[in-house]
């Protein structure tokens, strides 16, 4: 995929420390419009932490974030949303006791002219978007705790795409899904790509994201190992990066022996 012009997102030299742990150490990644970048690494590699700083879940200790070439401050989820960044969390981050429309619009409710909640308008929009994603979606007024895993995932995805996201972060989007729902997510990613949305796919499993991604950035122990075009790298090479924390050209014979 041709990358030209200004990147949609650039995270430069990002650092984050939790107590004595350097969770993210001087990491630089970028993302172009219509591109899918997989962020890979083992559990604890720092990929979720990195991406949560882009989502505004917590601020970075140091480093800079550029959106369309402009430096931005992202301190809260609200800041991130204002810059068109939407996040689908691995946990889905749904309020289980509320229904689907309430979850879709949580934090940016539609209001009547009097400033009150316009539940009917929200239900109307929710029905439209959920039906598009998942034609089998019923019981829209039930608390989401009563919904199936796939339906809950639909709610989380609908929330992210409802507000014209420019940048989408998907944290382990298919980890809890069956084959059919995984296919649905893959199709959705292709569709969003075509609309020019940039997508970060976070996963610990190479096979989940390799075919969907244009590039992969691999992290280990809080540091960026490297970024590779999926068209120019093999799965084995990327696997080596994940496990050894070294670029393919740096690998020694002993490393390879360890791998195989």
């Amino acid at each position: 995929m041709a990358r030209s012009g200004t990147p949609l997102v650039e995270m430069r030299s990002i650092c984050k420390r939790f107590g004595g742990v350097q969770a993210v150490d001087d990491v630089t990644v970028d993302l172009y419009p219509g591109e899918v970048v997989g962020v890979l690494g083992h559990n604890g590699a720092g990929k979720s932490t990195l991406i949560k700083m882009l989502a505004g879940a917590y601020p970075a200790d140091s480093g800079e974030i550029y959106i369309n070439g402009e430096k931005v401050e992202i301190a809260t989820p609200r800041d991130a949303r204002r810059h068109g960044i939407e996040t689908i969390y691995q946990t889905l981050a749904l309020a289980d006791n509320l229904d689907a429309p309430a979850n879709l619009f949580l934090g940016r409710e539609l209001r009547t002219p009097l400033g009150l909640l316009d539940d009917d308008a929200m239900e109307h929009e929710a029905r439209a978007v959920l039906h598009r994603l998942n034609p089998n979606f019923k019981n829209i007024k039930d608390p989401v705790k009563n919904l199936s895993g796939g339906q809950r995932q639909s709610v989380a995805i609908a929330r992210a795409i409802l507000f014209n996201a420019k940048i989408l972060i998907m944290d382990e989007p298919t980890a809890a899904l069956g084959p059919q729902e995984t296919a649905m997510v893959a199709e959705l990613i292709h569709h969003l790509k075509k609309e020019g949305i940039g997508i970060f796919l976070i996963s610990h499993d190479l096979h989940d994201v390799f075919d969907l991604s244009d590039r992969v950035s691999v992290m280990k122990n809080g540091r960026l190992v490297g970024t590779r075009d999926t068209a120019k790298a093999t799965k084995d090479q990327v696997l080596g990066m994940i496990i050894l924390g070294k670029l393919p050209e740096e690998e020694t014979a002993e490393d390879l022996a360890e791998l195989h």
Partner: protein
Amino acid sequence: MASDADATKLRSRPAKRAGVGLAPVEAFSRLTGLDSRLLAMMAALVVIWIVLDLWTGGLFLTPRNLFNLAVQGSAVGIMATGMVFVIVARHIDLSVGSVLGFVGMSMAFLQVEVFPLGAAWNWPLSIACGLALGALVGLWQGLWVAYGGVPAFVVTLGGLLIFRGAAFEITDGRTVAPLDPTYQLLGGGIDGSIGATASWALGLAAVAAVAFFSLKARSKRLRYGFPVKPLWAEVAMIAAWALLILGFVMVMNAYTKPRSDIPRGIPIPVLILLAVVVVMTFIARFTTFGRYVFAMGGNPEAAALSGINVKRTTVRIFVVMGVLSAIAAVVTTARLNAGTNSMGTLAELSVIAAAVIGGTSLAGGVGTVPGAILGAVIMQSLDNGMVLIGVSSSMRNIVIGLVLIAAVWFDVVYNRHRR
């Protein structure tokens, strides 16, 4: 209530069979739009009332007793509506009884010993000061919880001691009395009701409002092409509400002033309670604040990730609770015609029990204002009924304690077998 739960327990494959057993209830609740838990509580209340009435030889279900029951329960009811918000947001407030005492004492002190006696602005100003004081107390506790990171249990346990002590300090424990005669009406004494005509007018206005808003909501849903419940169910619901409202007015009007035929009508403290219920239900259902309270209770992390200012919302919850405690203090002092430092002692327990019996889940995220009021009515009915029967206060505590456990246990069993 108990028999239903027992039956569930005896079934061989409870999860599957109970679903079948509860199906008609669920269908009914879908038609009426009423929570099935609320329906169960209403049924329990009816049973309790009938049993108490038989037991007392017809003394319980008299206009006089129901009138007194409503007045006695109003302070707890007012605070229970706020406790729903507190508990739904996964907090607790143990200080409401002490705050009632402290604010009530302050208002009585201002009214009698600071502001000039007899001035027309005396009692409104003392109420305004009391409400502001309640809000400040709530702000103080809310800031500790939200920004200090101290658990609400600890902050309000401290508040329980602090404000009870403060209530004593204001006058060194001396009772302050008498209060302004107009102010006393707010407590619902002999003249503290609005009379027959006003009660009917208010009742009819309430019925009209229920019908108007039900049909308006229905037409809006139809305009969007959403499914609506059948028209007959809608009309039946409005009729049920009308029956409830007008029945209530009738009972309140059937109780007369001493040695006369003059009907009393709705007592002012009950009117205050009803206004609080309407406002709090409105906040819970139609404002972003109410929505955020429930979202925080359902999943605090999700609420924060959605850009909700969880800390500010927490502070607001405690401010609301403080103001409601102050309103309850107005009703209590007006009813006593005095400020005493022991007012509201142990009220926090009744308030929390009312909310919990009314279906508010201590795990957070679940609860309704009308449910809490129903819980308060159930508790007050049991207490009042047992007084009529002549049960000692120690035994009354034992029974109410057991009812509290049974109510929550019923809830646990019900939820386990629901699906």
